[in-house]
């Protein structure tokens, strides 16, 4: 397993043509810490995740992940779980989860074996051979999460993992994710538009304003700061 590593985002600005997506965003995540990024849609949260992942670079400012500042170095440290599960219909559930192992050169059978162990742990037992269209939204997200974990990267970037789920499944999945993340200490960034979801799951929450995205305030997770801090954050989101 990799050494856990921290994230440092310093004064990051990114524009797409005339649209300023992010303007001077600064925050950090310590090694092993789960940090929530909360903001309305269109505040550049996904852009920020893609830049942290090393898939894009900021126009100005710096991003370092585990000490690496260049795109390749950041990519080496991060696994991204996208908003849409992006499971591949030509592979079964186990084959989707074992994809990063196969990419890393692990023999196909061994990769499937290791994915199967994780399936048992994540409540996916019995769904190994299921195809993506046979799985419910919640199950698909679990498979996508297993795939992200099996990339065996020290940093997890979760982009609205429960955005497309109904309210009941969403609550279930939040509890499930809290357990799954608690079982393996890693640095994680969780992007969401739901402040309470972020407060429930994260050690710390960074609230972003919309268009351009700027840091409005930071809150401690698990009720730290109390109701006034929550009210202030909700005000910034409005």
């Amino acid at each position: 397993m990799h050494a856990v590593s921290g994230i440092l985002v310093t004064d990051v600005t990114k524009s797409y043509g005339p649209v300023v997506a992010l303007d001077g965003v600064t925050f950090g995540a310590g090694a092993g810490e789960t940090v929530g990024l909360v903001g309305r849609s269109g505040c550049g949260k996904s852009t920020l995740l893609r830049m942290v992942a090393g898939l894009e670079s900021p126009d100005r400012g710096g991003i370092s992940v585990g000490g690496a500042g260049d795109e390749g170095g950041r990519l080496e440290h991060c696994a991204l779980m996208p908003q849409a599960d992006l499971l591949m219909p030509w592979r079964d559930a186990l084959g989707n989860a074992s994809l990063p192992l196969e990419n890393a050169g692990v023999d196909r059978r061994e990769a499937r074996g290791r994915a199967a162990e994780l399936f048992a742990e994540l409540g996916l037992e019995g769904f190994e051979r299921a195809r993506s269209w046979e799985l419910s939204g919640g199950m698909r997200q679990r498979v996508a999460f297993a795939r992200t974990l099996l990339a065996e990267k020290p940093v997890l970037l979760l982009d609205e993992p429960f955005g497309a789920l109904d309210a009941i499944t969403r609550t279930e999945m939040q509890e499930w994710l809290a357990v799954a993340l608690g079982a393996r200490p890693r640095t994680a960034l969780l992007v969401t538009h739901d402040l309470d979801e972020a407060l429930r799951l994260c050690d710390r929450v960074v609230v972003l304003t919309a268009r351009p995205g700027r840091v409005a305030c930071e809150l401690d997770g698990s009720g730290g700061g109390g109701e006034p801090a929550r009210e202030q954050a909700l005000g910034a989101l409005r």
Partner: protein
Amino acid sequence: MTRPRIGWIVALLAILAAWQAWVRLRGVPDYLLPAPTDILAALRDDRGRLADDAVHTAGEMLAGFAAAVGFGLVSAAALHFSATLRRAVYPLLVASQSVPVVAVAPVLVIYLGFGLAPKVVIVALVCFFPVTVNALDGLRSVDPEYLRVMRTLRASRAAIFRRVELPWALPSAFSGARVAASYAAVAALFAEYAGGSSGLGETMQTATAQLDAPLVGAAVVVLAGLALALFAAISAAERLAIPWARRGM
């Protein structure tokens, strides 16, 4: 599922009955327009000759089609990987489609002789384009989100091609192959017209010269059968190879 099947059989029988009635009631001579029963009789009487022809023509179709699929897929991959090649070759490929096969066929016969080779080349030339263009379109239409995620999942360029781009492009490549399959019969016929000593095209030419319209009709029926068989074989291969394509995407 049974309704549409019965539907086309009923429609076909209705057309054949009307055709038969028209020819018989008006007393149309069979060298002008043979009745369906005349064609049936020709199919029976000349079955030996037609079977030999069918084997010959089917060989040309299959060899040409297989060559087109092979070269087409390799070309599509090469054009996909090299932007330079794509800019240089793709416009020429599209332009080449405006050259009619009828014009090229005699030239190829002069080059390659009267044997099997020019026929296979002509069929391959006709089938190559739909396979290549559809496979290339498939490779280039991969959702970029998949490519991004794959890059964070330790995928090399080769792994992205093998595990995402290739399977993603398969449904599109198969539609290209199906279009090509439907061209193959016509292409083989042209090739035999241009310089053939056997095959359904040659039989149709001699039968036309002898005003043996029922035999021409019988050859057409056999050729249509070959085209349908190839088309059905590709569709079956598609169902076996990519069962997820109808469900997952």
